[in-house]
């Protein structure tokens, strides 16, 4: 795509150099990076270390309100150019996850500075990627054309278009009639209409995202650990997998099963999050509730029109009804949902989705992060583990700590993790060379995988 990462993971999730040719963790708060030589911006100018320094300064400029500013400002103390192709990053606190260091994007300073207001990237080409923006029609399509002077292996396709199709029925029909060559499908019932077609390839692979229930620890019922444990054991995750993805998803903890590097073993997740309504009822009894006269009333938010959130909420409500919890589902428009979670905090549970990159970062769960201010749930022992993981340079030892973090999040019911739906993808058989990436639909396949059209 037009903009590129510093490092990438290959199909085996092994870290590989990209814009950064090499890197070195000097100590837990210092890392140096060497830039690939000959990387050109779309303007023709070569990427240099000074561009990285400038990009970082721009990103944290409070007057601009850039995305990524908060994370960058929290972690990075300084970025310094050591020479034309090398730069050094000093962190404010230890982090040995090289890919979790929030490096600024490789942006062409000269192009960006020509425009006096943003979002600049909707108007200009300021990246290094194999594609430049050919056309952007709001709400309709984005067309990319091949960058002739690309530094890496050039794509085999001259041009491709991302078409925005609001209704998935139209996507199904368009794939059938050949108007679309590739699509990511959200619902199983739509995927089922295409998966057996002779001129299409179809995949249903584990995704890197999962669905979960956000728990509002600031509300009285949710402060009671017995209630939280009851919910943990009272939700039938296999029913969600069977009903919503025809058995193709998986029970998931805080790291999706597709992340074979760091996720807990599936058998352990199944045990920690087993469906045990009798155990759930025992916890409810400890909390002072019963099935008849003293039932617990909770509300659960869902976002209108968002994937299958409301379907999930209905299954949660049906399951919890059996253990003495009556759940009122509140379907909210997205702006109202954000307001509910951030400001009003007038909810007990909320359906939400989440995903980690290949290197899971649990910094989000630390007690001093915004998430805690929104919904409470600070756990000092969790903070200690997260800090330990961030500072651990040995990958095997870090894996052990990351798995302990996942166990704690599950057993303390920091959130209630549900299931990881599969990623449904379909492509024309003339669309040659495509194989799904582990975990997600990834448009890098248009360059790195050397896909081409054989129509």
């Amino acid at each position, binding site marked *: 795509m037009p903009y590129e990462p510093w490092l990438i993971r290959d199909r085996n999730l092994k870290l590989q150099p990209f814009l950064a040719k090499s890197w070195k963790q000097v100590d837990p708060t210092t890392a140096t990076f060497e830039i690939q030589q000959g990387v050109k911006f779309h303007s023709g100018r070569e990427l240099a270390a000074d561009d990285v320094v400038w990009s970082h300064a721009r990103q944290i400029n*409070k*007057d*601009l*309100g*850039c*995305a*990524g*500013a*908060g*994370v960058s*400002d*929290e972690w990075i103390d300084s970025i310094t150019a050591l020479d034309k192709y090398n730069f050094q990053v000093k962190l404010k606190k230890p982090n040995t996850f090289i890919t979790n260091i929030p490096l600024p994007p490789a942006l062409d300073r000269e192009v960006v500075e020509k425009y006096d*207001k*943003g*979002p600049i990237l*909707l*108007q200009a080409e300021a990246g290094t990627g194999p594609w430049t923006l050919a056309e952007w*029609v*709001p*709400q*309709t*399509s984005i067309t990319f054309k091949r960058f002739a002077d690309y530094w890496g292996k050039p794509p085999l396709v001259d041009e491709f*278009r991302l*078409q*925005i*199709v*609001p*209704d998935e*029925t*139209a996507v*199904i*029909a*368009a794939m*059938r*009639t050949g*108007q*679309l060559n590739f699509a990511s499908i959200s619902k199983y019932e739509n995927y089922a209409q295409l998966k057996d077609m002779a001129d299409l390839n179809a995949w249903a692979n584990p995704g890197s995202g999962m669905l979960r229930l956000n728990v509002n620890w600031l509300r009285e019922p949710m402060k009671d650990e017995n209630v939280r444990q009851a919910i943990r054991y009272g939700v039938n995750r296999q029913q969600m997998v069977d009903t919503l993805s025809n058995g193709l998803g998986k029970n998931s903890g805080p790291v999706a099963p597709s992340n074979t590097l760091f996720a807990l073993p599936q058998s352990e997740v199944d045990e920690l999050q087993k469906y045990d309504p009798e155990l759930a009822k025992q916890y409810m009894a400890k909390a002072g509730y019963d099935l008849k006269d003293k039932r617990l009333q909770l509300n659960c938010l869902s976002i209108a029109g968002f994937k299958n959130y409301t379907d999930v909420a209905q299954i949660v409500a049906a399951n919890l009804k059996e253990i003495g919890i009556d759940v009122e589902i509140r379907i909210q*428009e*997205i*702006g*109202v*949902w*954000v*307001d*509910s*979670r*951030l400001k*009003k905090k007038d909810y007990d549970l909320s359906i939400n989705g989440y995903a980690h990159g290949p290197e899971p970062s649990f910094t*989000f769960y630390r007690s001093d*992060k*915004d*998430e805690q201010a*929104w919904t409470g749930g600070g756990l000092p022992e969790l903070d200690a583990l997260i800090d330990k993981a961030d500072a651990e340079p040995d990958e095997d030892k870090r894996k052990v700590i990351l798995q302990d973090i996942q166990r704690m999040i599950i057993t303390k019911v920091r959130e209630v993790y549900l299931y990881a739906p599969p990623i449904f993808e379909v492509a024309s058989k003339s669309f040659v060379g495509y194989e799904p990436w582990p975990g997600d639909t990834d448009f890098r396949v248009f360059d790195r995988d050397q896909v081409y059209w054989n129509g």
Partner: protein
Amino acid sequence: MNTYLVRRVLQVIPTVVLSTLFLFLMLNLVRGTAIDLYFGLSEDRTPEAEQALAQQLGIDKPLPEQYLTWLGKVARGDLGESWRFKLPVWQLISTRLPLSLELALIATVISCVGSFALGVYLAAHQNSALDQIIRFLALIFISAPLYWIAILLILFLSRSLNWMPPIRYVSFAQDPLKHLEIIFIPATLWGLTSIPAFSRYVRNAMLDVLSQDFVRTARAKGASERRVLFKHALRCAAGPLATVIGLSLAGAVGGSLLLEAVFTLPGMGRLYVEGLAQRDYPLIMGISLLISVTFVVVNLLTDLSYAWLDPRIRYE
């Protein structure tokens, strides 16, 4: 009549201003601001970033100042810039409105021709078998959502004919034939599904007029049934339908969201609804202003058409 006209035209300005003021207040009462939508639940949401964004968008100022600033710009012909797309609101509207109007116009012509023809026939053959069938169909099409019918149609076409209207939109200027291929089905579907209900309006209005003394007189004087129906009765019966059609056309300015979504058309409906979802205030206010003006003007034209259609009506 001139006095009436002048009075109605002068009413346009306060009506439009009041409606935009009302909308502006409602927008600011709705939970979830543009800042909430921009940052969501991101850890980038710091007080400084919020303040920076609020300043960029101009929403750090008091509400009266925000509204008056917007009104002042509108008076100078400037609808402002979309926060989300960073494009002038006029530009976004001008690229979408022709399609929405075109769809509505074609649908209206189809439904008018069909409704009048069918409505007159049904009035002349009251309680016939066809009259019962159309009554039943009107009920079906009023009850069945248009987008549901559209989805079924698309699935049917793609399965049985391996064809569907192109999803990549081109304007008439870019490729007339392709453009017609894109809009033919949605516009026709919209028009055809309106006929049963509209024809009932015409039928009922015709029956009412046909029972009038002047019609009886015309028949007594030897006028043919054709002349009675089309020369004497139809014009008088057209008033109610003119209102319905006028309002329907005015509503086209706001687009037909679900039809646009099913047929992947970049119309006003999707633009408007997404603007609302993103709390893109300049875009919402600009489109709302346009809808407001359109409704007021169309209302006026519809009222004036009554006087032209029905000689009994005169405005002072």
